[in-house]
């Protein structure tokens, strides 16, 4: 455990320093990521205005708060795309990684933790600029902030492991783009990425509650913009932990079954 911690620390440091080399590139990709929620924000604010100032309980200020928090949560949501894993299986790139002393998962995880650190650093000025441009309304409060931070970390962990587990499908078939794209399409609609949960129709909200997507995206945002009561927040954290456990089991089972089929194609 001690060893694992040391290795993680070293790997996170190295990857973070590597990423910091491409300053302009990082800035560009972050700016690009910011543009998507601005489209949604414009769309829903226009709706709120035509609706007499608010829509499903969201005022323009709430919506601005939602989509600015969105940009941070999205930053923390980036995971190893299952496409990347599929490529490793198809082209045999997994082989050298398997020879390393730790499970390949740890190397990816460390890399993405580093990305979180670098990404958050870059996010700060952008968040300030957005704040100035769109005047969001946040309730504030230390407790909310703490719960938000915890839910942000959990959302990263659960989505990372879940998407990683999805990548395991590549051991059985390499025609996976359709499966993955379907997954991401459902995720886009039900996670709160496109639209706050409250604006979905009743039945869609019920589906969203039992699927993992909302818990890895919309939930932390709803925490920080003050849409949830304390018991709801605590329950949400519990559900996130539950999904993290489910994802871990799926991943371990998928990996153990799949790695036996792996034949180092192309190597």
């Amino acid at each position, binding site marked *: 455990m001690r060893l694992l911690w040391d290795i993680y620390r070293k790997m996170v440091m190295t990857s973070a320093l590597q990423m910091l080399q491409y300053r302009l590139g990082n800035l560009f*990709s972050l*700016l690009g990521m910011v543009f998507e929620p601005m489209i949604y924000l*414009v*769309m829903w604010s226009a709706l709120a205005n035509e609706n007499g100032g608010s829509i499903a309980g969201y005022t323009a200020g709430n919506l601005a708060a939602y989509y600015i928090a969105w940009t941070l949560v999205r930053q923390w949501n980036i995971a190893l795309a299952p496409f990347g894993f599929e490529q490793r299986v198809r082209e045999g790139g997994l082989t050298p990684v398997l020879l390393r002393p730790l499970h390949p998962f740890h190397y990816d995880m460390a890399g993405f933790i580093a990305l979180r650190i670098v990404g958050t650093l870059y996010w700060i000025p952008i968040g300030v600029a957005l704040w100035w*441009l769109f005047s969001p309304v946040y309730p504030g409060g230390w407790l909310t902030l703490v719960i938000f931070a915890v839910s942000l970390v959990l959302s990263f962990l659960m989505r990372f492991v879940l998407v990683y587990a999805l990548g395991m499908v590549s051991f059985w078939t390499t025609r996976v783009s*359709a499966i993955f794209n379907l997954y991401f*399409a459902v995720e886009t609609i039900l996670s709160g990425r496109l639209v706050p949960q409250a604006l979905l129709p009743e039945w869609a909200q019920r589906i969203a509650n039992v699927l993992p997507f909302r818990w890895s995206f919309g939930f932390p945002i709803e925490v920080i913009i003050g849409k949830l009561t304390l018991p709801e927040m605590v329950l949400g954290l519990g559900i996130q932990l539950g999904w993290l456990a489910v994802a871990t089991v799926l991943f371990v089972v998928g990996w153990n079954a799949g790695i036996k089929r792996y034949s180092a194609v192309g190597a």
Partner: protein
Amino acid sequence: MKRAVVLAWQYLRLAVMNELQYRMNFVIQLFETAIALVTALVVLSLVYAQTDSLGGWSRYELQALLGIYTVLSAVVRFSIQPNIERLMTDIQKGTFDYVLVKPIDAQIQISIREVRVWQSIDIIAGAAILLDALFRLGVTVTFGQVLLFGLTLTLGIILIYTIWLLMSCIAFWVVRVDNIFELFDNIASAGRLPVDIYPRWMRVILTYLVPMAFAVTVPAQVIIGRINMSNVAIQAAVTLGFFVVTRFVWTKALVRYNGASA
């Protein structure tokens, strides 16, 4: 020019013949197109469950716009993007030499070499959404409107092409530019909404800097019968401006290129 057309046709034919070997890809593309379309239509119905007009656009007017957006972004993936990607690899690896030694203008060559055949499904799907929307709107479209629509759509495609090429010219100076494309791609997705609903500062970006939204809005306004001649004029001017600038930068970039492993 005639040679260029013949050459483009040959490239297209080869790509089609090549792709027909992989028919499973057709089914997969069909499935992915369906996912994208369903997602877009779900969003549309979510929005219009709350209201009947978004920034002055009714549901089927916005659907028409979405159809045009789908067509334009499919054209990008059908031809523009693969060609530019090939150009990037050529510059990085030095294989751009082979383009320079051929007897046809280099810009024409690099613009027609690649085709992603199955993306044509998205073009058809976009057209279908557009037609469906027009049918439901019950608008009568005059011949003049169709002409103007064709003109503005073509201008839009040329505009997007020149911007992609302009961005790729940067690669002659700094070799890594993939992040710029990523940024552009994200800004381009603003084209899903009419440009007039954005706040002023965004509208400026979307009209003059990354005019994808503009390229989608203008033909949409024409076809639903809300012709705005000043927008058409701006589009023609912006397209011409970008075209000239791109050609100029391109010739400068060619001089800058210093060949394989240099």
